[in-house]
């Protein structure tokens, strides 16, 4: 593939809950600047935002990479946190290992991963307990099946 793509990478600070979501916020802005459809930019931003929140509350931060192709957008979220022991359990709506403190902040309702799956067209999770998690999400342009 010698396709020219546009990509960027943003560090996600795991120590500051207040700034969780900044990477998604700037990604949404960039996608709009690139002239991408509002609906698509919103899907990417929401899914990435949930992922970013997960990285902050469960994994002490990490790196978010976004790559824009001619027909799709790929978002890769990498952390070196504790990993996910049981992916199918983590994918269940309402299941969460977040603490009460996190719930007080409005997250940890067990909707993070399900939301990411819902808003992306394809999602792959590579994880190892004690080593970290990488989530790869793909969003196809012109695909309106995942309405936001």
């Amino acid at each position: 593939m010698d396709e020219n793509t546009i990509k960027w990478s943003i560090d996600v600070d795991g120590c500051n809950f207040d700034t969780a979501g900044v990477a998604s916020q700037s990604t949404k802005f960039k996608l709009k600047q690139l002239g991408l459809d509002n609906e698509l930019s919103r899907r990417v931003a929401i899914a990435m935002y949930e992922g970013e929140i997960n990285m902050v509350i469960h994994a002490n931060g990490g790196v978010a990479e976004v790559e824009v192709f001619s027909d799709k957008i790929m978002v890769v979220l990498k952390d070196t946190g504790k990993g996910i022991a049981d992916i199918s359990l983590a994918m269940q709506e309402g299941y969460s290992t977040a603490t009460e403190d996190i719930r007080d902040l409005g997250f940890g309702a067990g909707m993070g991963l399900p939301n990411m799956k819902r808003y992306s067209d394809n999602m792959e999770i590579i994880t190892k307990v004690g080593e970290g998690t990488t989530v790869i999400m793909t969003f196809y342009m012109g695909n309106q099946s995942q309405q936001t």
Partner: protein
Amino acid sequence: MKISEVQEILGAQIVACAENVDVEIKSACGCDMMSDVLAFVKDQSILITGLVNPQVIRTALMMDMKCVVFVRGKKPDEKIIQMAQEHGIIIMTSDLRMYEACGLLYSHGLQAGGLKG
């Protein structure tokens, strides 16, 4: 319904972006869990919540919402107000409880809007 009418119905105080109150809105959502807002909301323009932290504004931003109403007398800090101002999101505060605020707006014709299944 215009956002200025929402303010009137709720007896709310506007603390950010008062210049945008002429914006027309069609539906609202009341919720304290931001993940649920991200999961279930579709095209709502107003978020009514008792949760006060910067993530509320960020959630509104992600969802392209135009206004956040903090109920139960909750007051946003300067950081939250500044963030809303940067992005043109109106913030208002009301002493009403969530149930009452939502009920009043609903009975004045503001719908829940399209919820996603």
